[in-house]
């Protein structure tokens, strides 16, 4: 009995299924192979015209059909793909009958320009095209599908229906920490004893012109367009911003007890989750890194681990000047002298910043790292930033003994989440 509970007496939460889609491909095996080989999924954008834009590259997913195209539709498709892989691997429940709730981290869904254009043209009006003009053509019965497509809850609704998850699905956003928050919500539900299993999915297909421009206007994006593969350079002295990217990750979480009872293969353990909310600024971290430090410490406390237990950090590592510096400061404070000798790597060097999906995508890569005992590289780490004296896994994968990984996710709006993942229940 006791072996199914952690030190705090809570049910131990394990992972029994994982699915992954990134700009490198679909499926976790293909992704792992490419990540270990140091391949980049960043390329020139062909989805929409980029003339006049400062940034013309992204980690787009162009191999998944999403028609008619919208970011909402693509987020929906890739979420289904990732969840399909995870649920199949877990071999849980019956088809279309998943025995637990859905927690979905998803890019905020909005009506898009193609829709506005269609409605404007359908109005038959000429002259000033205001929203009032569009309103008159909207209600004629031909555009009902737009309503469903652009409801914020639509992707979750579709997933819940397809996979038959229980109860009301939760759609959430904690900006770039969303994927980790989805996992945390699943862990909490299992620990409360509300459910034995949860489907945690994170998806972001939001590389469209307006989204790119919004980030660009905040000077957050790399403008190193040539070559695209060289743009995302976490922890490098010459990093100049992040690269927007698309991706989806899905995890089947279960209580260890339920997974054991049904003889499921255990892929890893979510040993701890921590949050730290920053009230300093809407887009910048507190200069003393206190919220980031608190976040990592909360995750360690939640896991019941001393900092010394962590032997790899899957960094948030966005490649913005600010993030990588602050993350390093936080790590140095939490891990002290050991900080410089813990291998750290940023998957974003290869797959870009998958935004709402990143926390889940990178948790899955962390679990694969534990399974393979091999750490994917941080590519483009040619000129290390001397102000970041960490053991970055530079440019080539590294074999290592990895027993406990900390995966960090930090986002706009002061959102910070750290997860602690291990191989074996203890």
């Amino acid at each position, binding site marked *: 009995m006791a072996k199914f509970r952690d030190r705090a007496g809570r049910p131990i939460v394990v992972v029994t299924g994982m699915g992954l889609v990134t700009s490198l491909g679909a499926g976790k095996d293909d992704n792992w192979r490419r990540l270990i080989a140091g391949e980049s999924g960043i390329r020139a954008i062909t989805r929409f015209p980029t003339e006049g834009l400062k940034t013309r590259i992204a980690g787009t997913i162009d191999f998944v059909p999403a028609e008619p195209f919208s970011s909402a539709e693509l987020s929906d498709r890739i979420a289904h793909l990732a969840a399909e892989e995870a649920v199949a691997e877990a071999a849980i429940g019956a088809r279309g009958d998943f025995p637990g709730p859905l927690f979905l981290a998803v890019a*905020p869904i909005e009506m898009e320009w193609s829709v*506005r254009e269609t409605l404007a043209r359908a109005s038959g009006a000429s002259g000033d095209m205001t929203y009032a003009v569009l309103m008159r053509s909207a*209600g004629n019965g031909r555009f009902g599908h737009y*309503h469903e497509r652009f*409801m914020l809850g639509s992707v979750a609704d579709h997933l819940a229906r397809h996979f038959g998850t229980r109860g009301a699905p939760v*759609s*959430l956003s904690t900006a770039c920490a969303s994927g980790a928050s989805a996992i945390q919500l699943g862990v909490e539900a299992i620990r409360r004893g509300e459910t034995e299993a949860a489907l945690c999915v994170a998806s972001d297909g939001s590389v469209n012109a307006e989204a790119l*421009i919004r980030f660009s206007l905040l000077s957050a994006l790399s403008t190193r367009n040539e070559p695209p593969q060289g743009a995302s350079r976490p922890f490098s002295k010459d990093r100049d911003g992040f690269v927007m990217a698309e991706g989806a990750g899905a995890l089947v979480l279960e209580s260890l007890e339920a997974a054991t009872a049904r003889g499921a293969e255990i892929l890893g353990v979510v040993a701890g989750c921590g949050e730290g909310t920053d*009230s300093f600024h809407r887009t910048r971290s507190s200069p003393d890194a206190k919220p980031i430090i608190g976040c990592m410490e909360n995750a360690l406390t939640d896991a019941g681990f001393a900092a010394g237990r962590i032997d790899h950090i899957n960094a948030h590592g966005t490649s913005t000047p600010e993030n990588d510096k602050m993350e390093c400061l936080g790590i140095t404070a939490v891990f002290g002298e050991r900080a410089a000798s813990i291998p750290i790597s940023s998957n974003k060097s290869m797959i870009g910043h998958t935004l709402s999906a990143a926390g889940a995508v990178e948790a899955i890569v962390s679990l694969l790292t534990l399974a393979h005992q091999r750490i994917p590289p941080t590519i483009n780490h040619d000129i290390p930033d001397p102000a970041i004296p960490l053991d970055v896994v530079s440019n080539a994968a590294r074999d290592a003994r990895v027993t406990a990984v900390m995966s960090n996710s930090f986002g706009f709006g002061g959102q910070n989440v750290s997860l602690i993942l291990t191989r074996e229940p203890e």
Partner: protein
Amino acid sequence: MTDRQETWITGIGLISSLGEGLDAHWEALEQGRVNVDDKTFAPWLVHPLAPVTFDAQIPKKSDQRQMEALQRIGTYAAGLALESAGIKGKADLLARTDMIVASGGGERDVGVDAAIMTEMVASGAPSGLVNERLMHNLRPTLFLAQLPNLLAGNISIVHGVTGSSRTFMGEEEAGINAVRIAFARIAAGQSDIALVGGAYNSERLDLMLLYECAAALRREFAPVWQRGPAGGFAPGSAGVFLVIESRRHAEARGARPFARLAGAVAGHARRAPQETLTGTFEAMWRELGPREADAAIVTTATGAEPATAGERRFLEAHADVPVRGLGTRFGNTMEAQFPLAVAIGALSLSRGALFAPGDASGVERAASQAPAQVVAVCAGHWRGEGMALIERAK
């Protein structure tokens, strides 16, 4: 896991079309007041936000400038809730106050959009037009008003709530899930105190456009129960936040409860046929446990169909329970809708009375006794059903 914790509602922050604060709302509800604007967006209706001086809860103009209306409404209401719970400005307590916010986002610069659409249609949308216009005409800070989680971000910045911060999306269902999960965390001992709620700005044609695609909007005002088979809802502005905490935590700091939150459940019914919604409501009603004789229902039915018709069947099956509707009075406040029902339910219990019925159709009838329990009921206009059981705190 620790023993199940009794959960109290110790703070309520409320702004809407009916005014600001608890007294103003109670008075408006008793008088059956409705604030609906049928001119600004004619032929469509909205329940616009009553005049509010945002400085009172958002003192820095620089903060106000960084927000659009939705975030100002929510941040303001959050401040009222913290004040009501007696924790405003108490840094130590706020640093461990958890937060779940139900929010949409996407506030747009409708002027910029209109100019682009006009040019698009006139010119045949040459490649790169949208890029060029957005690059030069979008305010960089507008993005921060477009991210749903930045309402929570602003509450952290302005009020210092930094325990944890989670934002739920998905229209009415977001508010249902926010209350449900904040409650579940406290009941299970995962959290001691939480700020939970949502906000909605109704005065946005870009969002009305989305609902109008489903022909969901009402054009002539009528009480919700008298909108006929076509139905339709009127968007309503509101910011609603609750402070909920374990009784143990509240008593330790000497806080008084408005009411006890005894249960919060959610459903996700397919809406066709209509019976599925009625069945989901019945299942949730049972899940909340046995009802006392002097229970009442506070519903947010908005006139959205087939949701309101499905809910009406449920209400008719419980005709012995007095009903009060919020939809006629507030419209559809979307993400704030379920928190609103819980807030008004708790307020009614704390005042020891139901407010006066506001309806001639027979759905709302005078109640003979003060309620000891209120069930807050919400059906989203498209998806999501929620119920909460609120009881007089003893």
